[in-house]
């Protein structure tokens, strides 16, 4: 698609609208300036954040834009020694990891049943999952709080894992059902002729084929879960159980005047996802917009 439109616009520039060559150059120039200006606005806050992470507080106040001495890592050492930062980071890894395993396992199970078998009520079940897609769950936080209390998992990371799993299932089932439906029947039928069980067909033959859809569904869910702040805010009080975004609020409250440490804390929190994004930007963009792009 993108190559098609690229060729089209190249064609336009060479002969398509020759009389408008100058106009076209001016227009493209204007659009290019808009893009460059926007990219500067997008990157500047992040660059200032990273630069400031390597400066002392007075240096930040005097010269916020100057390039720092990157060997000066005092702020990071302070975070390592004095704060619970590493704990928050590990908690985030654990909660996100456990939720993703549950989402992908349960999501694939449901999508496989709906997409691969014709049975009464399958379209109703798909509708049931799709209904969960549009409901803003934040507004049900009071009953959720009471539910977690009754289950005895307030102040326990299971509460987060369960809510994230439930929230992730609708999109996952939606993406994966469409994909699983589009797979051809031949392999499956051949295996059935050979007497393979349904479970074996699913595990050995179909699942390896579903991996691309799992990646898309995985990325779409992993970013909001990793970044979530609202549910830990309500469910988790114990400092040792806090996830990274929530721990960040404790941390920012403790070091209000030490801006060097504040900026390095923000930089450290942003680092994991930014690095993965830069390496896998194509998959990230596809995954995160997949709900909105048909």
């Amino acid at each position, binding site marked *: 698609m993108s190559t098609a439109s690229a060729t089209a616009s190249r064609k336009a520039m060479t002969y398509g609208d020759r009389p408008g060559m100058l106009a076209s150059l001016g227009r493209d120039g204007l659009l290019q300036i808009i893009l460059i200006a926007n990219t500067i606005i997008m990157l500047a806050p992040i660059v200032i954040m990273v630069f400031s992470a390597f400066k002392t507080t007075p240096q930040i106040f005097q010269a916020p834009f100057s390039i720092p001495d990157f060997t000066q890592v005092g702020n990071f050492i302070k975070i390592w020694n004095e704060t619970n930062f590493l704990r928050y980071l590990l908690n985030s890894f654990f909660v996100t990891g456990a939720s993703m395993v549950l989402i992908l396992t349960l999501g694939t199970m449901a999508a496989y049943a709906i997409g691969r078998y014709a049975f009464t009520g399958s379209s109703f079940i798909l509708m049931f999952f799709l209904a969960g897609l*549009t409901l*803003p769950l934040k*507004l049900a936080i009071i009953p959720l709080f009471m539910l977690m209390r009754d289950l005895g998992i307030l102040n326990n990371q299971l509460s987060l894992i369960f809510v994230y799993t439930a929230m992730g299932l609708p999109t996952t089932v939606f993406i994966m059902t469409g994909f699983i439906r589009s797979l051809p029947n031949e392999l499956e039928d051949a295996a059935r002729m050979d007497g393979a069980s349904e479970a074996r067909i699913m595990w050995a033959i179909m699942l390896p084929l579903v991996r691309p859809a799992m990646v898309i569904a995985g990325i779409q869910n992993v970013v909001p879960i990793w970044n979530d702040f609202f549910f830990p805010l309500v469910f988790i009080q114990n400092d040792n159980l806090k996830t990274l975004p929530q721990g960040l609020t404790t941390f920012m409250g403790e070091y209000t005047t030490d801006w060097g440490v504040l900026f390095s804390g923000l930089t450290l929190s942003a680092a994991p996802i930014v690095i993965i994004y830069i390496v896998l930007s194509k998959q990230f963009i596809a995954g995160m917009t997949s709900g909105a792009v048909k």
Partner: protein
Amino acid sequence: MPKLRMTGRGLWITLLIVPPMAFVALFIVYPILLAFAYAFFDWQGLRRGDFVWLENFHTVLFVEPYRSWTLNAFKNNVIVFFALMVLQNGLGFLLAYALWREMPGARFHRIAVFLPVVLSTIIVAYLFKLFYHPLFGVINISLRSIGMGWLAQPWLGQGNTALWGLIAAQAWHMVGFPTLVFLAGMQRIPGEILDAVRMETESEWVKITKIVWPLVAPSATIVFTLLFVGAFNWFELPYIMAGLDGSPFGSTDVLGLYFYRTAFGNVSAGQQDFGLGSALAVLIFIFIAIFATTLTIRLRRREIQL
């Protein structure tokens, strides 16, 4: 699909479908239904009291000071929605159009515009809070250094700029999302249509308004609806940047903050009230449901099938 041993097959399907459905039922459907029920009861702390019919709704809508709080928060949400419509979706469309031309560097610009989207709202909120700082924030330092110090002001500390400060931070955070959704929509426009247009007109304006805009209508439907739901659920960014009270003086109070404060209490007014909180949640929910559905239906109607 072949008909196999019905019992075994039925059992297998049940095994696959029940656990995922149980999760959604227990942690999404049940709490949402319960939220409606809670709103009709009087609550003492975590204990449910008498059934009070519509009294909670009456209180938040018509009894002072709740009435003014509700109206003020709602008004701010409306401002946020329309401002982001321009700053986030409008700018997103323009950027998508520029990226679509595949000029040199387009790939880099695409990655850059989406980078803030992957960051946690909490990081974005703190970052901008530091930037807006009246004395040491990078914005006021820059203004002073280029001789425009008279423009420097306590951005988040005064009623007439605070909400706009938050809106700007939110737009920076999320503009990449509509940009790439619109871009995907534009890339689906068939080349033949574009070639035909090129024969007909030289005007870029005509091309955008008569061809590109109508043809990316499905993208617009989704982006507008998501922004609407997001704007009326707005919580994290104002919570970090302006605090639970929507300071200063409620100028940044939005329904999300107001609902949370009413339900769970805050430092200044320790009182927590699940009944009033649930009533607010139900009202916000109904408002979002009605308007989002209307919006989607109206926008769908102008979509063209290719």
